[in-house]
């Protein structure tokens, strides 16, 4: 964990001004009260481009306090540009402590993964969301999708999943897989692999979703039913991997494929970099982990 450092001067705490935070906080409170419903909010320009997590950053800025410990992941990894930049942003503007350890964090901002380590009651998971509207590619008009949500008319989505089956023999949607929240709203879980969908179901942590460009905030309270849409004869299934992680030998986790050379060499490693590193620290070795040299040799 990196200890808090004095915040940069010249900014309000956590960058946003107080009126903006209040507006976002009101949206978050409504989002928690209406699970899965997309609350419109007056998204601000942030000092980063749309698509880099402006929605998640605004939600994090509205909830974070000086005692929080922040973790930021991008596709499961703590050390990609996006994750490092956002972590530094809050270390600078809010002076908060940051960490890569899932269990140590109180606020976790994520782009497209849910950590493998189970979340706990004191944690808030903030998702960066590019397209919050699950029906957008089926019905481009906001006026119409709003009506469909109002009427809980999600037939279109079932037709889309059925067409997958008719064409491919199985539901071919593998990420951003639509879920039904608390038996009412159909929601986009953001482009997480469908592997992560079961982790959202009755999670003890509070899950908040921020879409900056699309100006929407939504939420899943703790212990709330999150059900992936499916059919009786084509039940929802998550991806399976044939081999364990090549570095830490973990099974039952989401793996990334890494191409090693131009002759077809490849390895599969944990997408969650913190989970993989802590398993290796605990002595687990995958088939390609390699061995550290004895001290003194190089």
């Amino acid at each position, binding site marked *: 964990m990196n200890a808090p450092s004095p915040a940069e001067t010249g900014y309000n*705490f956590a960058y946003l001004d*107080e009126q903006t*935070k209040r507006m976002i*906080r009101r949206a978050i*409170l409504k989002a928690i009260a209406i699970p899965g419903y997309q609350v419109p909010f007056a998204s601000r320009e942030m000092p980063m481009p749309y698509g880099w997590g402006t929605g998640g950053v605004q939600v994090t800025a*509205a*909830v974070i306090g000086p005692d929080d410990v922040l973790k930021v992941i991008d596709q499961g990894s703590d050390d990609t540009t996006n994750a490092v930049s956002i972590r530094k942003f809050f270390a600078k503007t809010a002076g908060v402590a940051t960490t890569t350890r899932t269990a140590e964090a109180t606020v976790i901002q994520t782009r497209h993964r849910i950590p493998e380590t189970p979340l706990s009651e004191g944690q808030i998971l903030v998702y960066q969301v590019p397209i919050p509207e699950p029906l957008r590619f089926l019905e481009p008009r906001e006026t119409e999708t709003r009506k469909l949500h109002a009427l809980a008319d999600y037939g279109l989505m079932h037709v889309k999943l059925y067409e997958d089956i008719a064409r491919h023999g199985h539901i071919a949607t593998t990420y951003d897989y639509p879920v039904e929240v608390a038996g009412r709203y159909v929601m986009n879980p953001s482009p997480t692999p469908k592997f992560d969908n079961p982790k959202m179901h009755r999670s003890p942590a509070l899950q908040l979703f921020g879409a900056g460009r699309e100006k929407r905030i939504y939420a899943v309270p*703790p212990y*709330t039913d999150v059900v992936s849409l499916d059919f009786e004869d084509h039940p929802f299934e998550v991806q399976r991997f044939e081999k364990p992680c090549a570095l830490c030998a973990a099974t039952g986790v989401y793996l990334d494929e890494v191409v090693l050379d131009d002759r077809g060499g490849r390895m599969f490693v944990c997408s969650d970099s913190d989970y993989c590193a802590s398993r290796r620290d605990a002595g687990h070795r995958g088939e390609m982990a390699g061995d550290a040299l004895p001290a003194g040799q190089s």
Partner: protein
Amino acid sequence: MLDVASTGFADPVLDAQAQFRALADALARPGSLRAFTPRLTPPVGFPAALASIALTVADHETAIWLDPAFAADPGIAVWLAFHSGARTTSDPSEAAFAFVADIRAMPPLAAFGLGDEAYPDRSTTLVIAVESLAEEGALVLSGPGIETDRRLGVTPWPEGFSAQFAANRALFPRGVDLILAAQGVIAALPRTTRIREA
């Protein structure tokens, strides 16, 4: 006239953040008690917890409804206007937030803003002062945010209020959300919560 002895938050930025987190946590885990220790001095007659919630969430974009007991003291509306910029309204259905001194003398929940089917978020959040809140009580809560069920004791809890809240629940996704505040502690009952009297 503004009461010269009254104050807003000691630290407007960090106090608002801490109070918001308590509020969000209370709503996310309905019926759980959250310590709530406001650092401000509102006008006499306006409970500190309610005043603190007002400064955390209300500003010039939100209309506030005050119940007759609070509205009778013009100092409260003046204090709210000075510290938050929020205007007051006499129409409860138009209010983003309603502040209630006495749950027994309150208009029916259906008199407040319930939102509409397309925009259920355009509804009133009621902030109600109560005498006490207890972890062991007559109300058995279930719904999103609650693992199995949770007990809550609210004093006073008027006759028939559970039925009124059930009618509010039946409107979902429309409906109002309640925040209950006693001395030093708050609990919330969002529209998703089911209440059974044990």
